[in-house]
């Protein structure tokens, strides 16, 4: 009884929250509304990749390919079967959207199956390059297929999908969470920890791996289909390698295997470049100086952390000296930079700076917390209660 109450209750809650988010999006400006939708999509992407990479321990670095399969499936269906007359309004009926999402799930699931198959034989980096290659091959096929819009892209009708985007995200989170609570989930984890041993213990390694790929890519495909209806236009450039890398980064930064980590990292990494759009323009030498200072600072903290691991104090005179060197070094670099004629007196607009800051933050985060924000752990209300009880 309690079991069902919790189930139904959480489903209802997820639906309500999704509609709430949808209402917020509808009430806010176009920018915010789109960002809310894209953030939801990235959460789905990160959590679904986490299923493949973090939970099952496979090494996929081409997740954008499945996103692309779903997106193009929906766009192709919509542009072929629905009138394009609706392009400029949000008039696509939701049942059609959901049907297209369903078909996108099937096609991307099939793609995931095809890519999952070699994973039976391939390990680690070899599998990684196959997933990456799949995306590249897909791009070239699409580029050469006029029915899919070629290099220009493909127009499709639009729909207001923000609630569905978030429902998908919650569904994905729920599915992954529940999976981990079951014996099936344990077999996924065991494949990650030791493939040979789990095989010996009777886990069907083949099935687990392929299942992870199919599930993960199906979720990505659904996200892709919703992206199509949200944007009304897609193009191969929206699914390049760097998109895959960003999704992968979200997973690792959050902590491989941690669902909550993936969610938080996805939200953080998605919003960071958007916030940086508002950063004021800065003088180039100050930027370089700050970068150098931060690099030295990170080095110091890193060394201090290593010391702490060995049981010594975190804050020693040496650490303070490191902080000092970092500050002085930063100032020196910024002064020196102004002596170089190519670098002197240049101001960098925030638009050009934001990707630099983004990548710098990425490197720094990895250096300071290589296991990711949450490591393998989860973070949720439940764990807080448990801790309070204990």
């Amino acid at each position, binding site marked *: 009884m309690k079991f069902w109450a919790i189930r139904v209750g959480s489903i209802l809650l997820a639906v309500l929250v999704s509609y709430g988010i949808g209402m917020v999006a509808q009430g806010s400006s176009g920018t915010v509304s789109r960002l809310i939708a894209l953030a939801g999509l990235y959460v789905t992407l990160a959590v679904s990749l986490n299923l493949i990479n973090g939970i099952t321990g496979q090494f996929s670095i081409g997740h954008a390919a499945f996103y692309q399969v779903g997106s193009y499936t929906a766009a192709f269906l919509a542009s072929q079967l629905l009138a394009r007359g609706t392009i400029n309004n949000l008039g696509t009926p939701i049942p059609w959207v959901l049907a297209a999402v369903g078909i996108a799930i099937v096609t991307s699931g099939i793609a995931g199956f095809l890519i999952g198959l070699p994973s039976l034989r391939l390990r680690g980096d070899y599998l990684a390059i196959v997933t990456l290659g799949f995306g590249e091959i897909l791009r070239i096929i699409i580029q050469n297929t006029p029915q899919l819009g070629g290099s220009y892209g493909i127009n499709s009708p639009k729909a207001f999908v923000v609630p569905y985007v978030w429902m998908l995200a919650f569904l994905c989170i729920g599915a992954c969470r529940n999976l981990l609570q079951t014996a099936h989930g344990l077999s996924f984890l065991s494949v990650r920890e030791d493939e040979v041993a789990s095989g010996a213990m009777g886990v069907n390694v083949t099935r687990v791996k392929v299942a992870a790929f199919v599930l993960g890519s199906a979720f990505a495909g659904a996200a892709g289909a919703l992206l199509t209806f949200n944007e009304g236009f897609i193009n191969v450039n929206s699914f390049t390698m760097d998109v895959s890398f960003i999704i992968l980064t979200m997973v690792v930064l959050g902590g491989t295997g941690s669902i909550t980590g993936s969610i938080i990292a996805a939200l953080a990494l998605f919003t960071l470049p*958007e916030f940086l759009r508002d950063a004021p323009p800065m003088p180039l030498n100050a930027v370089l100086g700050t970068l150098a200072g931060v690099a030295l600072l990170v080095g110091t903290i890193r060394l201090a952390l290593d010391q702490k691991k060995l049981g010594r104090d975190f804050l020693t005179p040496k650490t303070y000296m490191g902080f000092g060197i970092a500050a002085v070094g930063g100032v020196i670099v910024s002064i020196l930079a102004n002596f170089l004629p190519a670098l002197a007196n240049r101001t960098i607009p925030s638009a050009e700076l934001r990707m630099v800051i983004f990548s710098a933050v990425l490197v720094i985060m990895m250096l300071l917390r290589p296991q990711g924000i949450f490591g393998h752990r989860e973070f949720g209300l439940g764990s807080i209660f448990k801790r309070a009880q204990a």
Partner: protein
Amino acid sequence: MKNLLGVWLTLAASAAFLTGCNPSTDTPTSKGSSSSDTPNTSAKRPNPPKDGPAFGETIKIGLVASLNGELKPWGDDSKLGAELAADEINKAGGINGKKIELLVEDSNSKPEQGKTATDRLISKGVVGIVGEVASGITAQIADSAFQAGVPVVAIGATRTDLTDIGSNIFRVCYTDDFQGPVMAKFGFEELGLRRVAVLTDKRQPYSEGLSKSYIETFKKLGGTIISEEFYNSGDQQFNAQLTNIKGQNPDGLFLSGYFTEVGLIARQARDVGLKVKLLGGDGWDSQELVSGGGEGILGGYFCNHYNDNEDRQEVKDFLTKWKAKYNGKLPGTTMGALGYDSVALVADAVKRAASPDAKGLMAAIDSTENFLGVSGTITLKGHAGNPPKRALVVEVTSSGVVFRKAYEHFE
């Protein structure tokens, strides 16, 4: 097994559902991407669903530019050009006492981010948007701006069907339907070319569109396209394609891509011993064309919007102003001039706007007649957003780019 059956059933059912519910297609020509085949001047352009904002204390104009990513060289120039125009207008006291405020957003060379950029500009209350240099991104800008009723002036997006999106989209450049035929005519009539090979950049919609219109016209004129080979932006070795082309013994080679690859192709064509005339579109235009292409590019012809050595006052003034503002440098690509023209054209329309809001501005842009731009005279009135423009054919020589022949707009 059972599950699989279920999946197929769902698939079949949903497919039937989709086809069954297919509504009567009221705009058959604009379905998918097929609309690029039909000329757009006759198409009725839909009007935006709502009216845009009114002018504020300042005239806020947004610019979307690729300040990061692979289109950065063009994006940077479009920004410099736009800023030059805005500065100049403000220094002269603004328009009717109001200053122009140019808000710049980055599209990171990606359509999706171009849309975010546009949405942000709209939420900041811009009354007009200028940009982009690439058609794929401009389509996204136009779509967002359409919802908000804000006019868009595209800087260098030459894809023909782009202006079909709505009555809010205009451009200051010519379309692929014009410069391709110009080069086909020039090659056929003036250079006596009969057998031409085409090398297309498969990754750039621009290049594909240009090659298509070139091939169509050249065939119509009676020439033969002996082969079309492809590459992707970022490729650096073209020996294989060029060896194929050389085996076909062409009279000329049409390179529809951007100068970043055209330079390499020219050098390597010379290396493999392919001594034919090279032809191309406005994507060639760059200060770095000769340093990239070396001796191989000399004697090549391309189609351009304007020419640095042209004897028109607008061009001379523009270059003087550019040099004064940017440390004596010349614009790196043609997008500098087009970016300048876009902002100047919007500013000119602001002056003539019947009502001080986006709707009035849109109508004023649409009624632009004989606007003297750096890239030639621009008339938008009655042309559904696509100004009939003059195209110049120029020759690449060791002392720079030399004007050879001008073509007035033709159908």
